[in-house]
């Protein structure tokens, strides 16, 4: 009996040490990517190629889901606000919730599952088929050639995708409340414009999405690079990318919100 208890405690300790070790490896890898990204930024064609795969191909899912999120926000907000006779404030509700929270967060979650998983699977498969090792043999640094362009393309495209998500959401809210339900158009826009502040709301949302872009792509490239070179290992790494980056996005969002919006109105 005590032997079994000792074994289970050993198991916990092993898991903790393993995860701390992994965290350290991830940090070292992240710093290595930053150090070696000079060459990939000089050869910007590589980044543009990856921008096509991470940014342009994520556009459809971002635009469509932004539209629907905005429409649902408009509908639900209208249902509640019209009880108090202040349905013209629905523009404020839609715009503030999108610009401050939903735009950066939902766009980052979609980005993690659409582009992050693809990055992990691609790098993991390259490692499994020993393409990365072959590059190393040809004196081509795989981190500078393969990993850094993918990292920077994610970092660049994330703020744009979040902004497009917010714009489509506001448009969806406008479509439902003004065009379909018939809220006054002038008060919809004017109340929104008087409530949304450029520096406080839009710039903070932009900063949030930059943080999310760094977090998601850093996790994605690390999981791919660190994946066991088997089919099972790559699939596990892809799953871990989506799970870890979703959790990191939500946790990071709480921390950033606490710093940005604390104590002011």
């Amino acid at each position, binding site marked *: 009996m005590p032997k079994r208890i000792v074994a289970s405690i050993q198991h916990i300790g092993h898991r903790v040490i393993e995860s701390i070790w992994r965290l350290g490896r991830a940090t070292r890898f992240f710093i290595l990517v930053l150090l070696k990204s000079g060459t990939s930024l000089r050869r910007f*064609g590589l980044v*543009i*190629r990856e*921008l*096509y795969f991470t*940014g*342009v191909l994520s*556009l459809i899912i971002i635009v469509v889901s932004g539209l629907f999120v905005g429409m649902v926000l408009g509908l639900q907000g209208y249902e509640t606000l019209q009880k108090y006779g202040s349905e013209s404030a629905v523009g404020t509700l839609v*715009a503030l919730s999108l*610009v401050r929270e939903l735009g950066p967060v939902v766009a980052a979650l979609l980005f993690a599952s659409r582009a992050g998983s693809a990055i992990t699977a691609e790098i993991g498969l390259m490692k499994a088929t020993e393409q990365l090792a072959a590059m190393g043999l040809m004196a081509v640094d795989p981190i500078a050639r393969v990993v850094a362009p993918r990292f920077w393309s994610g970092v660049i*495209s994330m*703020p*744009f*995708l979040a*902004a*497009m998500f*917010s*714009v489509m959401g*506001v448009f969806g809210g406008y479509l439902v409340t003004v065009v379909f339900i018939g809220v006054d158009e002038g008060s919809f*826009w004017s109340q*929104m*414009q*008087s409530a*949304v*502040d*450029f520096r*406080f*709301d*839009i710039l903070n949302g*932009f900063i949030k999405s930059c943080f999310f872009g760094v977090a998601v792509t850093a996790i994605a490239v690390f999981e791919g690079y660190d994946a066991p070179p088997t089919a099972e290992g790559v699939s596990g790494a892809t799953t871990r990318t989506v799970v870890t980056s979703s959790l990191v996005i939500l946790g990071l969002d709480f921390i950033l919100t606490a710093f940005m919006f604390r104590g*002011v*109105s």
Partner: protein
Amino acid sequence: MQRTTMDLWVGLFVITGIAALMVLSLKVGNLNVYNPSQSYVITGNFENIGGLKVRAPVKSAGVVVGRVTDIQFSTQTYDAVVTMSMDSRFPFPKDTFASILTSGLLGEQYIGLSAGGDQAMLMDGDKIMKTNSAMVLEELIGRFLFDKASESDSF
């Protein structure tokens, strides 16, 4: 995929992203309404600011002419010192009257300025002398009840 088509799509993507940011800041936000780069700062002491908050608008005749940037409590006079950043396109006379008003029954509170007739204008760092506190509902009800009670006594 051809290299040039890929470049085209990425270019379109980046342009759309920048356009989305522009729409957010110009159409959704209020960047065009008020430019804080050209502004002058004035202060005012209020006996009671009610629910006034930092970033609340400063309006004159219903037009936004500035924003509240800071609210402090003064231990010398025991009242609230409200700092306002005003758009420099709108200078106000020295004897301008500032009062804390509420937009609508349950709306946000803002500072309303009504211009006086003084020739001298408020400069950067000046202080508004004539202020009117926020209306506090409990005080109003209390005064009303007190008036009613004294009325019924006289009969």
